[in-house]
């Protein structure tokens, strides 16, 4: 039972094989080691709010020392989170849900709202001269990705088309090529994942002979995309520093369990635009799944 008390469970909405979330998970694992606490990372197999609320219930049953959750849907997850609070488990929310975190009884929120990040990226791309944009979405219907597109549209101001694609690089490349061939006025592409959608988008623009004419940016980071940024084939990557979204809550909860310490306000982990100047430095960290 003593060992159980030092256990911290993370329940997120992102699958373990999602490049973005695997970095969060790495942060969780590193914090677990650093703080010498047992950490468990759980997520449903698809973007599934019903399954996620059940995972939170399962976590509550195990009476952990702390619970870390992402809250992409307050309606669906609220009751389960409130149940955890009622069971006396300290809860920290991360990534999404900054607006409802307090209301549901979480102690703190660590992360960056997707809409805000999208807005910042949109504004930046608008500033670079973009007029007609393409939002390459590799998982339409995943609310957090949809929100990124939404934020982008708001910040960008110009015309934005959502391009739904699959996870397959060949498919993404072909669709991006088709989209820029069909509409020659496209001058901006925002991909919603660096490794999945970003790299093939860069390749597609290159194959279409429009490198430079079309600005490509992406959410999150991958070593390949950062190299493109460094080479000037892409403009920037938006870094939420999601490693911290995994790392910090564990540290906070561990200290809370030990000493009852907890920061007084929410922590914003991003956004952070990685442009040509910074790209080269972070390539290696990205390849290791830290950024």
């Amino acid at each position, binding site marked *: 039972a003593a060992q*159980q008390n030092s256990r911290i469970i993370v329940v997120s909405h992102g699958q*373990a094989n999602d490049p973005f979330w695997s970095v969060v*998970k790495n942060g969780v694992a590193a914090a677990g080691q650093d703080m010498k606490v047992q950490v*468990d*990372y*759980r*997520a449903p*197999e*698809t*973007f*599934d*709010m*019903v*399954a996620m*609320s*059940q*995972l939170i*219930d*399962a*976590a509550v*049953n*195990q*009476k952990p020392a702390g619970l870390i959750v992402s809250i992409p*849907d*307050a*309606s*669906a997850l*609220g009751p389960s989170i409130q149940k955890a609070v*009622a*069971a*006396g488990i300290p809860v920290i929310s991360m990534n999404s849900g900054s607006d409802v975190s307090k209301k549901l009884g979480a102690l703190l929120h660590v992360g960056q709202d997707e809409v805000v990040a999208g807005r910042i990226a949109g504004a930046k791309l608008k500033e670079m001269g973009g007029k007609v944009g393409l939002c390459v979405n590799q998982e*339409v*219907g*995943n*609310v957090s990705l*949809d929100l990124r597109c*939404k934020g982008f549209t708001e910040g960008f101001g110009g015309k934005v088309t959502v391009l739904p694609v699959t996870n397959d690089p060949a498919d993404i490349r072909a669709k991006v090529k088709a989209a820029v061939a069909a509409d020659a006025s496209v001058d901006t592409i925002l991909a919603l994942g660096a490794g999945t959608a970003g790299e093939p988008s860069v390749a597609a623009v290159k194959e279409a002979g429009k490198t430079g004419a079309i600005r490509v940016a992406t959410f999150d980071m991958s070593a390949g995309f950062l190299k493109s940024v460094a080479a000037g084939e892409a403009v920037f990557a938006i870094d939420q520093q999601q490693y911290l979204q995994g790392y910090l809550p564990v540290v906070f909860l561990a200290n809370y369990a030990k000493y009852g310490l907890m920061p007084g306000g929410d922590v914003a982990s991003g956004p952070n635009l990685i442009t040509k100047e910074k790209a080269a430095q972070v390539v290696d960290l990205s390849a290791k799944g830290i950024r």
Partner: protein
Amino acid sequence: MQDERLRDVSLVTKIMRRPELGALAGLILVAIFFASTADASMFTLAGIMNILSPAAQLGILAIAAALLMIGGEFDLSIGSMVAFTGLIFGAFLTLNSWPLLLAIVATFAVAALLGGLNGQIVIRSRLPSFIVTLAFLFILRGLSLVGLKWATGGSTQMRGIGDQAGEGLIRELFSGVAFEGVFAWLAANDLIGKFPNGTPTVTGVPVSIVWFVGFALLATWILLRTRAGNWIFAAGGDPNAARNSGVPVDRVKTALFMLTAFAAALVAVLTVLDAGSTDARRGFQKEFEAIIAAVIGGCLLTGGYGSAIGAFFGAIIFGMVSIGLTYTRFDSDWFQVFLGAMLLLAVLFNNFIRRKVTGER
């Protein structure tokens, strides 16, 4: 009327020979595995309810899918149907502000209509249902997205449905927990666990579980005891032979497609009322999981053989494996490896036991 060419068989053999019960062996194996590796809280009352909740939602779909599979067809659109009927239901409540009962009835009606459409296309075109319902998988998923954006003015998530639904008897039939009195009494007498603040850890049986069990019993009764059940087996076993013997195969199949759509709508209503929201990804890949559960439960993909109780156990196995791993210490990166291995083991074991017991080659 005993025949000298019939060896005596034990009662165990007779029981295990029933397709209904084969999956039980797999379930027991999986339960033993978790009992020895997982956190003890998994098999507390709260833990079991926690396993049964996802199993119930999957199971309702799986039982309908099993009936349809026995009838010789597939429905790949049930996952999308959950999302679509969830949207419809949400729209009826929030946009039209219909009372709950009307919204539920209307949702079921729409589902039945869509199921009937699926069935009619399959029957009239004589195309494989796989491809027809696959088209509907895409169409309904796409319509859910379009509809959600239209209904919410651009978001893929519709919230606040729970508040619109109001309270009342109808609501209690489709959300929350049942038998609250019993559990309150149990908690008061310290027979089940309580939270520090005095409420029991389990306040009742989630209604979805009650629906699940009820639906399994009903489906079993239909399959084994009614005329419709005989027709389902016949339609799936050999549609030509069945037709030649006077079974109205087309009507049976259409009814089954309506049933799966109906089950999807039921799950949609249950989850939407439970979660209070719906989004474009609801029910994603549930068609797949439902077929898995039905097959674990012993249904033949080629039709004509299987059982509802098998699908019932199949859904519980699937639910137990997928929730159970979170109670163990395994790294979640290994989740899929374990899920696959456990499924394979469960099915192999159930197969092995059955063959041992019945003395099949």
